[in-house]
Every structure is written in C-alpha cells, then in structure tokens.
C-alpha cells in the first residue's frame, strides 16, 4: 500500500489520477447540490422563530465548515511537504487556497445577510466573527506571499510556514462560541447530537457533502494546471503537450474538467 501511495506522490502520476477522478467528484457535486437545494429550499419547513431567513443556513454552515476544513487539509499537505520534501505537497496547498478563501468569504457574506434580519446587524466584532475574518486574511496572506516569491519551491516552504502557524486559528473559531460570550449562537450540530428538525438537518448535511465534492473537484482541476506550469520542462509534460496541447490551445479539447488518458503514463 505504501508504495502505491508514494507512486501517486509524484506530480506526473498524480496528474493522471486527478484527471480520472475529477468527473466523478464534479458529477457528485452537481447531484448533491441539486438534492440539497431541493430539500432545503422546497421541502424543509419554515423555522418557528426565524421564519424563512433561516434558509441561509444551507449555504452558511456548509461554507463555514468547508472554509475551516480546507485550511486543515492545507496544513496537512504543508506539514507533509516540510517533512517529506515532496513537490506535490506544495502544489496541493497552492491549489486548495483559493477555494478555501472563497468558502470563508461566502460564510462571512451569508452570515452578514443572515445577521441583519435576525440579530439586527450585518456585523459585530464578537469572537466567532472576528476569528473567521482572520481565517479569510490567512488565505489572502498565503496567496499574497506565494505571489511575491518567484521560485516555486521557496514559495512552497514560506507558504507552509504561514499555513502551519495559522492553523491555531481553527480551534479558536470552532470553540469561540463556548469559550467566550458571543452574539453568534452555539453549534446546532455536534458529533452525536443536533438541535435541528430532521428535514432541515438533512438538507444542511447534503449541502455540506456538496461543498466537499466541489472542493475536491475544483482543487484537483486547479492542481493539474499548477503541475503543467511547474513541470513544463520535464519529458512527460512534453509528451502530454504533443498529444493534447494543440487541441487544448485551439479550444477544441474536452476542457479542464475532461478526463484524459495521456496523464497515466
């Protein structure tokens, strides 16, 4: 098994593996999003105290979870990159950051539009909201740091340090509503228990799965471009370009999401 995994740690074989996995995750993302939206927006009843404004939860909570979880995955890849010194690790961190930032922004944005009708304000500086804003700045900071360093391998190392330092913020976000007095309410869903009606909970969990599928599909698609850019002088990229590069440039390829068999060699 170990040999199997290390084989895919090389960008060349991971490129092909990612290409074969993308259609499945993208398809799963579309299907789960449609089911989740149907359950959340059509089937689920109105909430007893918040009326229909609570329906923002179907985006807000999955986005907030994904924003935090993506950061943990980035930190995992960053740690692996520092320990094993593999090229793929830095590329994965690079590929995950924009999606993590996007979901964190969505959590902040939808939270504002949820807070206004329920709490009476778009924003307050309580511990939960402030620490989530810090998470967004960590993502932005990582991308800015990468952009400022020309050598990709040095950017990997600097980015890994920033990512690992910032990981302390994740438990702070998660436990902020327990550790301090916050305007934000406590967690509705905790391991083993929930304070939501079943239909509502189902819709939210399906949307959370959709966010996972989307993040996997989009970051695999992005890492393929990053691999091409960073490995363009290698022999295998040369063969790849000879077989599909012209098509892609001419715009007649199956596109970024399309599977391809060339990457497997």
């Amino acid at each position, binding site marked *: 098994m170990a040999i199997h995994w290390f084989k895919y740690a090389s960008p060349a074989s991971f490129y092909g593996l990612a290409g074969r996995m993308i259609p499945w995750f993208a398809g799963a993302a579309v299907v789960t999003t449609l089911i989740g939206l149907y359950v959340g927006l059509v089937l689920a009843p109105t909430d007893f105290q918040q009326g229909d404004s609570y329906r923002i939860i179907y985006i807000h909570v999955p986005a907030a979870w994904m924003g935090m979880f993506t950061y943990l995955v980035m930190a995992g890849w960053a740690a692996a990159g520092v320990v094993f010194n593999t090229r793929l690790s830095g590329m994965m961190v690079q590929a995950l950051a924009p999606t993590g930032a996007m979901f964190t922004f969505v959590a902040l944005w939808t939270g504002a539009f949820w807070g206004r009708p*329920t709490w009476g304000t778009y924003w307050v500086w309580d511990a939960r909201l402030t620490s989530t804003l810090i998470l967004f700045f960590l993502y932005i900071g990582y991308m800015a740091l990468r952009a400022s360093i020309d050598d990709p391998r040095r950017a990997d190392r600097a980015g890994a340090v920033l990512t690992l330092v910032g990981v*302390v913020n994740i438990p702070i976000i998660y436990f902020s509503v327990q550790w301090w007095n916050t*305007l934000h309410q406590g967690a509705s869903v905790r391991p083993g228990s929930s304070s939501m009606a079943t239909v509502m909970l189902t819709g939210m969990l399906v949307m959370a799965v959709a966010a996972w599928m989307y993040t996997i599909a989009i970051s695999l698609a992005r890492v393929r471009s990053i691999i091409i850019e960073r490995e363009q002088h290698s022999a295998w990229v040369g063969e790849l370009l000879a077989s599909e590069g012209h098509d892609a440039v001419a715009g007649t390829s199956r596109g970024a999401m399309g599977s391809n068999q060339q990457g497997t060699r």
Partner: protein
Amino acid sequence: MKPRQKRMAIIGGGLAALAVVAALVLNAFEDNLLFFFSPTQVYAKEAPLDRPFRIGGLVEAGSVKREADGLTVAFKVTDTAKVVPVTYKGILPDLFQEGKGVVARGRLGPDGIFRADQVLARHDENYMPPEAAYALDQAKKSQGSVVAPAGGYGK
C-alpha cells in the same frame, strides 16, 4: 537523528511553542474578547462604568413596556440570577421577544438603569417548524417545568 526526524521535531516544537504563545495571548485578551457582560457580572462590578459596554441575557417575560411615542422601549435583562433594567429608543430587531436572548450596547447610569443605543437579538441554535415548537411548548406547560435557556448566558 535523520534529517526527516529532525524536521519533524522542529515542526512539533514550533507548533507547541506557538500553541503556548497563543494560549498566553488569548488569556491576556480574555477581558476584551468578552462581547457582553451578564447581569450578574454587572452587579459584581466587572463591567466598566466609565465607558459603553454590552449587556447580554434574556428579556424578562412581561417586562417589555413601550412608551407613548412608540419608539422608546423599557425592558429587563436577566440571567435568571440578577436583573438589569434597560431603556432604548429605536427600532428593535425582528427576533426581539420576551423570554429570548438579547444583547444591548450602552452605558449604565448612576440610577442603575442601562441606557442602550443598540439592541441586538441573540437567538439560540434550535431550528424546527412552528408546529413542533408549539407541541414542545404544550408539553412543557403540562409538565409545569422550567427549562433552562439554551446557549449559556453569562458564566
């Protein structure tokens, strides 16, 4: 030590050091991170009297009184131990309700009345259809029990 083990040791040590630093910083900022004070904390003189602060708790049932101008509201904030009277002139959020959570920002006057310039509703983490909430309410009434507020107000 192999280079790999050395790198792992450095990362582990670095993260441990960071965790300690973060814990110290958070401890130092604990007071500033308190978004609101409970009535009990206000009575214990933990809240600043010389500058505006926030008070949080439940709106005491039966305490909401509207003045003749239709804008000024008086109500009492409770954490089930202590009660602080509040006055506020302005529009209340939709979820402002007796028996529900509230966070008000303002100053505590020498007369013991908290004059708020902003009132926010603090809802709990329960989500259910109105029928289920009604059924739950009826069940509670028939038992005659008092259920502690969810979410934990004050310490």
